[in-house]
């Protein structure tokens, strides 16, 4: 979806570039933070995840459902290593440079993306959403390089199985979030 819908928003005649396009989420940050509590790992989810691992057809269905929901709301591209809980629920993988640690220096004075000027920088959106919920400290975590073998996998299953635990690390700096995973 991200390519087709986002492409429809682009102004006609604008020079195109390949790769991802910034997507402003279609759900308020506050409800996403609340909803997240429903997805937090527990014994039932861990059992579900383990069971899905042994049922390839069901796992594919489950993954397709996750993809459908997250594509619609966030423009999810299924990198499989979801950073949404610490990026104000705006997806950094929709940044044309796939930056996971904050905005580049090319954001326009009006907040436009340098690559797709008709769109708002996804990191600016992330900052505003996180700040609005008192979560801007989340953005100071070091997001580690992603594993490109994981594209297409369900990040919910990975999350419940604790396989996402090394996606980010705390850095030694003032004001940084020190809490555990969101």
């Amino acid at each position, binding site marked *: 979806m991200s390519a087709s819908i986002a492409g429809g928003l682009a102004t006609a005649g604008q020079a195109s570039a390949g790769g991802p396009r910034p997507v402003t989420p279609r759900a308020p940050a506050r409800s996403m933070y609340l909803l997240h509590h429903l997805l937090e790992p527990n014994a039932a989810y861990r059992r579900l995840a383990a069971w899905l691992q042994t049922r390839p057809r069901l796992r594919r269905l489950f993954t397709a459902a996750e993809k459908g929901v997250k594509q619609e709301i966030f423009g999810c591209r299924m990198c499989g290593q979801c950073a949404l809980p610490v990026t104000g629920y705006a997806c950094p993988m929709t940044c044309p*440079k796939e*930056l996971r640690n904050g905005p580049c220096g*090319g*954001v326009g004075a009006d907040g436009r993306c340098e690559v797709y000027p008709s769109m708002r920088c996804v990191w600016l959106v992330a900052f505003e959403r996180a700040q609005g919920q008192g979560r801007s400290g989340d953005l100071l975590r*070091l*997001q580690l*390089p992603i594993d*490109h073998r994981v594209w297409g996998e369900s990040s919910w299953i990975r999350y419940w199985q604790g396989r996402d635990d090394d996606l980010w690390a705390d850095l030694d*700096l*003032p004001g940084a979030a020190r809490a555990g995973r969101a």
Partner: protein
Amino acid sequence: MTQPAAAARPAPAPSRFRATLDSGAFTVTAEIGPPRGADAGAVERKVAPLRDWVTAVNITDNQGASVRLSSWAGSLAALAAGVEPIMQLTCRDRNRIALQSELLGASAMGIPNILVMTGDHPKFGDHADAKPVFDLDSVQLLWAARTMRDEGTLLSGRKLSPPPHWFLGSVENPSAPPVDFRAARLGKKIAAGAQFVQTQYVFDAGAFARWMAQVRDLGLHERCHILAGVGPIASLRALEHLEQRVPGVQVPAEVSGRLRGVPEDRVADEGMAICAETIGALRQIHGVAGVHVMAVGNERRVPEILQLAGVGGLAGSHAG
């Protein structure tokens, strides 16, 4: 500066740039773009006039996403001309294998300073049809580089023998939104490994001073050397280019008004005067370690600007 010898064990390349910053002296760097051609002599000709005026010279990495002679080759040419290079390395064109390999090569060949940045998107260059790589972002690359140097390991965990050594820096753009996040983002880069930072063009010293106040509040100026980016606007065409085509750069109305208010043949001089005034204003801001003069294509005029700004040359201090 010792020249790299092929058979010798890599000797630590002493960074004069680092030593100057550590001394507390107001430090000046400049920037050159390598040629679109297989000519190391072009790099030497560009850096030679800067030799007695700046402590180190950035060698850009395919700036503007257009193909140029590589930054490591340009850095070696600068070393050969007796000018200390700061090798720029972007995430745009290389995955993590190539980036780490490049970092090892730079250290082995005696390049003492590395500047890590995300890089312009290929869309802006002469190969807009290229695949944008961006396997790592600039913060991840800083962290990877520092880990290589200080812990002697690659991202894979494999040991390096011997580990590389360079003075490691990055960039920041204080004037790009979200402005309130930019100081914190610098903090993130410092925590990931940046020992110095050079900023995007500053045309509004007042706005820069407000950012520096946030930087000082976080104590970042004590953990990192901050060089403010400046540059002369040489023509009305260059002004329009900056206003419309360079992402993230803002030229305040006061500056554009001054440039548009003088006769066409005086624009270049006015641009240099504004640049010199900006340097003077930046120098007064507590925590600013120096300036980085970007006059790509106009490098010869850098000494004039520095003279106008009253920033002395390196007479007597040159290490050759």
